[in-house]
């Protein structure tokens, strides 16, 4: 009875959250626009999760896990659908420079940070733990939030171009994040005894099998969708059925639903014939998928055990501040270096230029995929760290004067 009432209350809250009242209320608070609705849902997830009120734990969490798997795969499809030859051809060299530089610097820092944290946390940790942590840090470091409208209006063509570059760069880096983190997860995983092991052959074999299965499903789904002539009901059926199959196969091979979804999405995106009904259906559900993932992230995250003592809490706080500060310092620097040649056509002092400081929301989803695979609870703690870094990076965007390059200072008050 209590369980049913909880579900009932949860359903009612979801309905109210989607209503015009809540949307009107959100518009009243400018800070909410910058933060995005996802954070409120994440906070709700934390409240109902096992850490606070404990509404979702044990049996109830088991009941909704299939939904979580489907949501992760769906998120992967949305990212994968950005793989379009036409879009890639349209990317200017400046953006390729920016993206490559960001990827290289983030990866190098991730390797260093992963190694350092593994050594400090568990001095005798195996190489597998390094790889897993590197994957996690890479997910935190690579890319940025694609949304820039909330930071300020695009006043001229150069500012608009900056906004477009921010959005396109975030899209490309999202694909890189999913691929890198999924490979790390596939090669370094926990065995049945809970030990983290590094098994590249087993992992890659599983990955190949997963890719093969996904390719077969994608091919079949695409062929069938060609025949359905944009029929809404059949498109819905194929999408739901395919999502379920992909999620299930991913679990069988111990992989990430994000990667399976990405491969499927890429097969749609790279297809010569556009499947508009399918693309519209998948992208229209994007806010629901993001909200669902954030809700589950709230339930799944766990504060690092170290933070339960004063010194531990200070250490965790220091790590979070350092990571967020690193973003605040490095991201604008990377942008300035990469786009220095194009400063005539791209407004480096526009509000959109501050967007890369904010951590990509995808990070939370990638770490959620880690957390559901991990039985030790380490990934849940890393997810909490990523959430804190993300929030702090948003705060740093709102306070523009901290460690900001000279060209951005002029627009701070704009």
């Amino acid at each position: 009875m209590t369980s049913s009432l909880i579900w009932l209350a949860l359903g009612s809250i979801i309905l109210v959250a989607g209503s015009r009242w809540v949307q009107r209320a959100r518009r009243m608070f400018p800070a909410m626009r910058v933060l995005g609705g996802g954070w409120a849902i994440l906070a709700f997830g934390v409240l109902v999760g096992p850490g606070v009120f404990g509404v979702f734990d044990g049996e109830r969490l088991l009941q909704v896990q299939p939904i979580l798997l489907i949501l992760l795969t769906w998120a992967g499809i949305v990212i994968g659908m950005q793989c379009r030859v036409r879009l890639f051809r349209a990317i200017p060299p400046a953006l390729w420079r920016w993206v490559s530089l960001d990827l290289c610097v983030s990866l190098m820092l991730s390797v260093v940070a992963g190694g350092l944290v593994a050594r400090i946390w568990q001095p005798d940790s195996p190489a597998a733990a390094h790889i897993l942590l590197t994957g996690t840090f890479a997910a935190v470091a690579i890319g940025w939030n694609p949304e820039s409208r909330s930071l300020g209006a695009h006043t001229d063509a150069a500012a608009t171009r900056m906004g477009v570059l921010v959005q396109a760069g975030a899209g490309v880096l999202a694909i890189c994040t999913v691929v890198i983190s999924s490979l790390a997860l596939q090669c370094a995983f926990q065995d049945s005894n809970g030990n983290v092991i590094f098994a590249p052959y087993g992992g890659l074999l599983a990955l190949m099998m997963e890719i093969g299965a996904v390719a077969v499903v994608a091919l079949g789904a695409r062929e069938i969708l060609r025949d359905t002539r944009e029929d809404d009901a059949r498109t819905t059926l194929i999408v739901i059925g395919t999502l379920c199959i992909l999620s299930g196969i991913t679990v069988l091979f111990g992989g990430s639903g994000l990667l399976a979804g990405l491969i499927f999405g890429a097969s749609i995106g790279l297809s010569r014939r556009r499947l508009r009904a399918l693309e519209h259906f998948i992208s229209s559900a994007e806010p629901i998928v993001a909200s669902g993932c954030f809700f589950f992230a709230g339930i799944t995250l766990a504060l690092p055990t170290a933070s339960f003592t004063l010194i531990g809490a200070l250490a965790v706080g220091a790590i979070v501040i350092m990571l967020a500060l690193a973003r605040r310092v490095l991201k604008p620097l990377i942008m300035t270096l990469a786009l220095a040649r194009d400063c005539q056509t791209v407004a480096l002092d526009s509000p959109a230029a501050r967007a890369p400081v904010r951590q990509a929301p995808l990070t939370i989803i990638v770490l959620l995929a880690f957390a559901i695979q991990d039985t030790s609870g380490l990934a849940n703690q890393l997810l909490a760290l990523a959430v804190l870094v993300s929030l702090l990076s948003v705060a740093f965007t709102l306070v523009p004067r901290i460690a900001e390059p000279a060209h951005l200072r002029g627009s701070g008050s704009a």
Partner: protein
Amino acid sequence: MIAQARQEAKARRRPRFGALFLAVALACLVGLIVLARELHATVVGIPTSDLPAAGETTLLLGLVILGSWLAGRLVRKIALPPITGQLLFGMLIGPGLWEWLRRPELALITPAQLTSLHGAEVLAVVMIGLVAGSEIDSSFVRARLRAIVMLALGQVTVIVATVGCVAYWFFRSPAHAVIFATLAATCSSAVSVALLREMRHPTAFARLLLATTVTKDLVLVVAFSVVLFTVATTTNAGGHAWHWIVLHVAGSVGIGCLLAIPLRLALRQIEERMIAVVLVVAVLIVILCEITDTAPLITALTLGYTARAIAPVGSASFFATARRLFLPVCCVFFAAAGAHIECAALFANWGVVLALSSSRLVAVWIGATVAARAAGLPAAMQRWAWAGFVPQAGISLALAAQVLIAFPGQAWARNLVAIMIACITLNEVIGPILMRIALRRVPDSA
């Protein structure tokens, strides 16, 4: 411009999939699942997931949705309704058939896994109820009220009398015969609405069949409860039935009507992400029915009907989305129904099942034809009305299950239910075929 026009014309000319393609696709899908499971079980050293149960549930759901849809399309090539294909696919992957053939290891869904699909099945029942309720037009019901009442009354009377006599001959107990005969009078709203949705423009005949089925089933749920209550009190078998009557019927209808008001208010405030709204509402109905011990199908039916009646414009987008989700819902519902079919019970009592089902078929034919004539329906409808009332599915199975609840631990109840389920299974398979023929034979002008 010209190239685009040519491309569109080419796309229009492209032939629809042939039976071979559909069969290969279905075989590939099943093969993929079998191969993936086999590789997972045999290859050593690959990563394992922490969510095997959730993964298995999603995999099965995907198999059921895509597989039954393909099977439905495949049987359409031989002029059978897709529901038949969906049922047969469910039967093929379910445990019942393979257990009867003494090869349970070949079943793709084990009995335990079938239980994990229960949530999806109940959700499907609610969605079917919502769509069925919204398909019933109140003005149509008012205009055809006489025909609906006469068809329902005529059939119930003839079926209860005829099947009751045959059942008495087999069971030698008036109580068991009445229980069986009342259940035999029920039809399937799910099949009716699925076939109605299959038609691009539902004919007046299809709408009449649906309205009559819903009305008849509502009355029969009450009647069945009264019968169970009476038998239970006369045999002192249990006191659950009275409680069940009140809650299942009055409660279901009452909750359905009451829910229409908050739904109308909510739909005024929500205009986007309707898929999420429909799913949340369906889940809420399932939970409410679980709390109050009411029937999800009746509640959803009433809600669908009331919401459409009080806010035809406001609820249009909601029901359009529900109809969009109807195809996957039907695939899950009918494939799961097929997977539940107990071939052992069907073949163990084949003589009794055949006799009882034949008598039901004859009674449906006589009852519907006589009632259609008395109601003054057009000649084509008089000739084919009976075929629309043969299918049985969800509601009949739910009522059969109530016998076990009302008479726990009674051997006769278990035997009776086994025969009931076997008869429902038979009607479940042949019913949609007959109904589809009827819908094709009666033109809209009739």
